[in-house]
């Protein structure tokens, strides 16, 4: 079968490689990389009753919200007129740029921004609709903040970058797709560095719609468990600074990891239901592996999409078996969504970050709330407690409404940042 590779990149840290040199996160589990990672490793849940809007009339009351962003120094340039989703993205990008020590060394023309989101500035979109219907006041910023391009413009302008700035919207496959397209830009020589990020905020619009789709649970989010009955959505942003390896080396920056291979595709099957046997998901994972020239049996860990819905987790399991064959059973797999909630457009970014930290520190964060094995999800689930492991190659898998899929293969080499033991 012809596969659908998005980008090929070298899978070692030679000068042709694409590397990750900075990371940033805003999430229900913390608004710094150390806090986020420590909470993941200790199996903490970021799910709680929602407080940012009144959910009394909604059927679902629990989700993952961002707290204390301003108190933690998130994005001083973002005022209240900036949409909350964009504020999340600005704060994550700010962390990634500083983490990469890029502020003084960036070549503005060679630095691009590729963001991705499901709903972008939908809080501002709600204001716009309410203004039209007479249910709300006119606000100066409603159109600008609703325009998804604004997020990328704000990130680029923050640092004076004049490379291309784009925003993708591929539902819950968005975050990984941003990495894939960012890597393509570097590979094609369109940019030396790309700030690749995913972001979304919880709003009444999306909470109402996602609730109506009946994909959420009123209980615990328990991916791959026999009694799983839905996901829980959350908000946040993840940012990765992708960089041409030679440029990173010239700056004297030690990378976190190599972006070894990426792919995007579509099931071409149904808007909301997974393809039978997870065919599209299998194709995108196989394509990303082939893209990086990586044999399936050299993958040490799978960071799954793992939403906690009946349909996703069983079809994703089938897809993994299709791609990895017998190696699937001996490859540890986790879903950090069990702790972060489903971060929508930020999910693929946050999961790539977790994958990189897994390789750095040799610890796989757990899939919490896991009680009863499901015969249809008979993989090596890292259940409830973090597991020490030597992981040098990881694949992060994503999928979304509309039938879109994306996958990213990340590798750690001796030239990457040395590991630390997470507390």
């Amino acid at each position, binding site marked *: 079968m012809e596969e659908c590779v998005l980008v090929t990149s070298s899978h070692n840290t030679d000068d042709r490689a694409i590397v990750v040199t900075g990371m940033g996160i805003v999430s229900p589990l913390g608004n710094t990389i150390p806090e986020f990672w420590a909470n993941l490793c200790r199996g903490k849940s970021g799910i709680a009753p929602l407080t940012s809007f009144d959910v009394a009339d*909604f059927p679902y009351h629990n989700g993952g919200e961002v707290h204390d962003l301003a108190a933690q120094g998130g994005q001083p340039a973002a005022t209240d007129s900036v949409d909350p989703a964009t504020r999340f993205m600005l704060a994550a990008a700010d962390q990634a740029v500083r983490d990469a020590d890029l502020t003084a060394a960036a070549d503005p023309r060679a630095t691009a921004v590729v963001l991705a989101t499901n709903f972008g500035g939908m809080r501002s979109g709600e204001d716009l609709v309410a203004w039209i219907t007479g249910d709300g006041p006119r606000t100066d910023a409603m159109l600008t903040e609703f325009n998804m391009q604004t997020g990328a413009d704000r990130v680029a302008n923050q640092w004076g970058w*004049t490379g291309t700035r784009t925003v993708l*919207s591929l539902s819950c496959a968005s975050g990984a797709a941003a990495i894939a397209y960012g890597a393509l830009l570097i590979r094609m020589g369109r940019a030396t560095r790309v700030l690749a990020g995913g972001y979304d905020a919880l709003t009444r619009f999306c909470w109402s719609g996602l609730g109506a789709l009946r994909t959420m649970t009123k209980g615990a989010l328990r991916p791959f468990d026999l009694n799983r009955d839905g996901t829980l959505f959350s908000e946040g942003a993840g940012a990765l600074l992708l960089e041409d390896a030679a440029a990173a080396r010239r700056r004297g920056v030690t990378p976190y990891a190599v972006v070894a291979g990426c792919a995007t595709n579509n099931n071409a099957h149904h808007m909301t239901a997974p393809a039978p046997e997870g065919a599209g998901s299998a194709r995108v994972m196989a394509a990303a592996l082939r893209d990086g020239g990586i044999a399936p049996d050299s993958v040490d860990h799978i960071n799954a999409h793992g939403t906690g819905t009946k349909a996703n987790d069983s079809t994703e399991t089938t897809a993994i078996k299709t791609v990895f064959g017998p190696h699937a059973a001996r490859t540890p797999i986790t879903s950090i969504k069990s702790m972060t909630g489903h971060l929508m457009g930020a999910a693929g970014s946050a999961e790539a970050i977790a994958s990189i930290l897994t390789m750095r520190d040799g610890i796989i964060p757990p899939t919490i709330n896991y009680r009863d094995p499901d015969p249809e999800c008979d993989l090596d689930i890292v259940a409830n407690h973090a597991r020490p492991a030597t992981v040098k190659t990881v694949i992060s898998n994503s999928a979304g409404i509309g039938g879109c899929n994306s996958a990213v293969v990340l590798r750690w080499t001796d030239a990457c940042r040395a590991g630390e033991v997470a507390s």
Partner: protein
Amino acid sequence: VNRRRVAITGIGPVSPIGVGREAFAAALNAGRHAFEPLSLFATTATQATLAAEIRDFDVQPLLAGRKAYLDRSSQFALGAVALALRDAGFETPPADTGLAMGTAFGSMQTAGVFFEGFLEKGTRFVKPFLFQHTYANTAIGLAAIEFGLPGAHLNFVGALTASASAIAAAYDLVASGLASCMVAGGHEALTEYIYAASDDAGLLCRAATATAAAGPFGKARGGYIPAEGAGMLVLEDWDAALARGAVIQAELTGIGFAADSAIDTDTCTGRGICAAMQAAHDDTAHPEPADTIFASANGAWYADRGEALGILAAVGSQPCPRLVTLKSLLGEALGAGTALQTIGAVLALNGQARQLPGPTDAALDDSLAAAGLSCGSDATATPPRHVAVNAVDPGGNVVSLRLQQTQI
């Protein structure tokens, strides 16, 4: 990366001036615009009243089966993909064919109706089936399903540069050999929400009639006339296109990116536009100066001026090439804008669109004329050979595409 040549083998325009290759080309040759008072929704609360609407378009005959519901933008997108695939002569597109689309506000009409239902009746009475049609990637997902296009899949949401980014991404995928065939373009639908908010923000042309509108690069221009539609192009690996006997309508030879946060200000020098045009020129394997420029200009005061200055900087001491302002007929179709411009460029390159709209000396902004911008639009001119297509977003992003006549 060893580049492969990228052939354009199919076009699918769904526009206010015509649907399909022949109708679109005929409207261009007739110089026919589509500006009328809005009929889709009331304009009593807005100062602008004009728009370029698509009327009497029925997508259903172009689809395999009847759809229970489609957002207006999805109708345009699906129609354009169907027309482009048909135009490319495919019975079945290659198995790895992918999609790259752009839009500014996607399925905003459905999103607005959905949220109005929430505001009116509360969350327990919203219509679930509508929600899946509210996503920005609804149209591209539906297209993948409808036409069986499972390959690389990218959906850009970037206002005026969205479809340019999509075409550029598709170019990179095919040129690098990562895809053999991509359908790329963009779509947009007029909605009351965005029309009213754009009017409120002072972005729209407030002329009462089309003849009173200043138009791109014009004197006393004060905004654009909003439009809707979709444009899709089939991009193929050159050798694969030749091997299947496809008609190569034009060659996409290069792309260029840049940005300039000052575009929507009076301090814009055109630096970002110039940089993107230069990058696209340099990206071309055997670069020749563009003899024709399809400008992004839409009647916006600052952005038009910035683009003019950028073009002049890019041209340098050479005579100003022919300027084509397709938006003087089409209006500003946001996410579909550059895709329709590119289709116009393809039709011009292969001689089907012989009369191309441009600013006239009498209408040209005096300050731009003084800066050296000349009209160069000549109804009797020979077909262009090397074309630049610009996409300029007032937020700062700039994409420039380079096309040339087919040379086997």
